[in-house]
């Protein structure tokens, strides 16, 4: 996973609530067995609409996405995070997220930053004047070139994972003793390989 320390970019704004993962990546693209190449299918149906926000020339090249509440709700498809990352987004800023999407994002190298409505309003006002932000994942700050600076809270473990591009599985495997001890103390219920019919 790529490290995520600091991003300076224009901000794409899709100010709609409850953007579900079916919109982010529709089901017909989930048949592929690869993990890459989903960016071309991002918001596939909405992209067909000429006035869809991501067509705005001002948003071209954005690595930061600003969206409405409950972003990424619905299906657990990690393809949604893969598509956003492959399209070029490294940061999402929204009032809230679905739990599964938030977890998938960290594992894809995307930071999901939660801001309260008041600070989002400040941010939008500043972006309306000049569309550029710097997000620093080491200091957990968002700065606008006109001087606005916002600090945000972020789960410490997720921050470390993102900043250093860490692999969860390698870290957990180092705790094999604890897992083995748990298994030794917990009797099995069944063996899925030998279930009677």
């Amino acid at each position, binding site marked *: 996973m790529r490290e995520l320390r600091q991003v300076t970019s224009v901000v794409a704004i899709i100010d709609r609530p409850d953007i579900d993962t*079916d919109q982010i990546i529709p089901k017909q693209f989930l*048949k*592929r067995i690869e993990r890459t190449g989903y960016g071309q299918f991002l918001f596939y149906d909405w992209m067909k609409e000429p006035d869809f926000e991501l067509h705005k020339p001002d948003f071209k090249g954005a690595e930061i996405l600003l969206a409405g509440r409950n972003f990424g*709700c*619905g299906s657990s498809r990690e393809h949604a995070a893969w598509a956003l990352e492959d399209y070029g987004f490294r940061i999402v800023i929204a009032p809230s997220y679905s739990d599964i999407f938030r977890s998938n994002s960290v594992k894809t190298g995307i930071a999901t930053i939660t801001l309260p409505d008041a600070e989002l309003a400040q941010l939008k006002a500043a972006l309306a004047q000049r569309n550029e932000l710097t997000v620093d994942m080491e200091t957990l700050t968002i700065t606008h070139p006109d001087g606005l600076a916002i600090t945000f809270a972020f789960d410490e*473990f997720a921050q470390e994972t993102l900043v250093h591009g860490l692999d969860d599985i390698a870290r957990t495997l180092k705790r094999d003793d604890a897992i083995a001890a748990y298994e030794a103390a917990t009797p099995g219920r069944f063996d899925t390989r030998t279930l*009677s019919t």
Partner: protein
Amino acid sequence: MAGTTLFEKIWQAHVVDEKPGEPALIYIDLHLVHEVTSPQAFEGLRLAGRPVRRPDLTIATMDHNVPTERGPITDLIAKAQLDALRANCEEFGVPLNATGSGREGIVHVMGPELGITQPGMTIVCGDSHTSTHGAFGALAFGIGTSEVEHVMATQTLLQSRPKTMQIRFSGTLPFGVTAKDMVLAAIGKIGVDGGVGYAIEYAGEAIETLSMEGRMTICNMSIEAGARAGMVAPDATTFAYIEGRPGAPKGAAWDQAVARWSALKSDADATFDRIVDIDVTTLTPQVTWGTNPGMVVPVDGTVPDPADFADPTDREAAERALQYMGLEAGTPVTEITIDRVFIGSCTNARIEDLRAAATVVRGKHVASTVRAMVVPGSAKVKHQAEQEGLDKVFVDAGFEWREAGCSMCLGMNPDTLSPGERCASTSNRNFEGRQGSGGRTHLLSPTMAAAAAVAGRFVDVRELG
């Protein structure tokens, strides 16, 4: 010391390791796998040279993209994904209930019917409707593909502990009102993000009197309220459902298991972070009008006016939803005509759902303007329904009777809506394009869907007597 909740008891029993400032390392008792969210996880294991740690606690099936018409699969990309699952299961020693085995089905129908969904377990799957299994008093939740790989490699997950919510359904469910109506009403009440960050426990008289199928319907849609997990305390109904199934404990082990499971309930003095009360005595059949499951009204209601929403964000969302759905504010729900009916999905395609729908259509016929299909939740459900003659009831009434799978719930297989088509669906999501690009989905119960199929429009199933 204050008592503990059902969730806390299960959580505590599964903590493998905990470090300050980090999510807990939680043991996973059962990992369910399907073709769509697993290939990249298996590939990750292969690249790192890692085995599946506990294939005996893992089981796979084919459900999301399988065709529901007999004959060979014609979608070559879908076929490649199914072939990949077969090859991966062989390579990693994971048991697979493949299409044609007689044990295949939607992953959340298969687990319970094999008796491997049991109280007190932690169960995960790369599918958000894994919350279904919580109906048995398990902690069950959907995960992404990276987490699928993590579970395969370690049989654990790193999880932050969610908050707890209790939704109490009081009273007796009126005639013609079902579990689906209970959960749609609950989502309408707390909103599609009301459960974000929570594990929900459903309780109260109306839950205790529900069948396991009904409890599964409710837990299934927890995720539509944003909650990763929903659960019901196990009781005699739960034990009766599990007993005798292939994965169930036998003999003395059964009695010990029931004794252990009987302790799995929230203590009387347990506290929840949030409590929601819903009186079911005044509940009516529900129909969604918009593009998320929280956009729901009673069948005797009307399509809402966006102007009536106080919050500007909600107003804009309602306007967009009405435009997408091709609906006018103020239209009575019973005046909305439909083109398609889908009875299926992990929400409502179990034997009890099919029995209920068959009761409504027996001796009647699907409206000439409607194309209707029934897709059983599993091969076993299909077989059982055929034993009971339900297939004949549906076919005689003009329904298509299909093979098991996820089908038109998400339209990954050929079962999709065409642009503009309006569907009465027993599934769980009415998102834009969910059942096919441009398709318009209304969620409702199996009996309401059956009644709509006959009438060609939404009708109040209670009026059919």
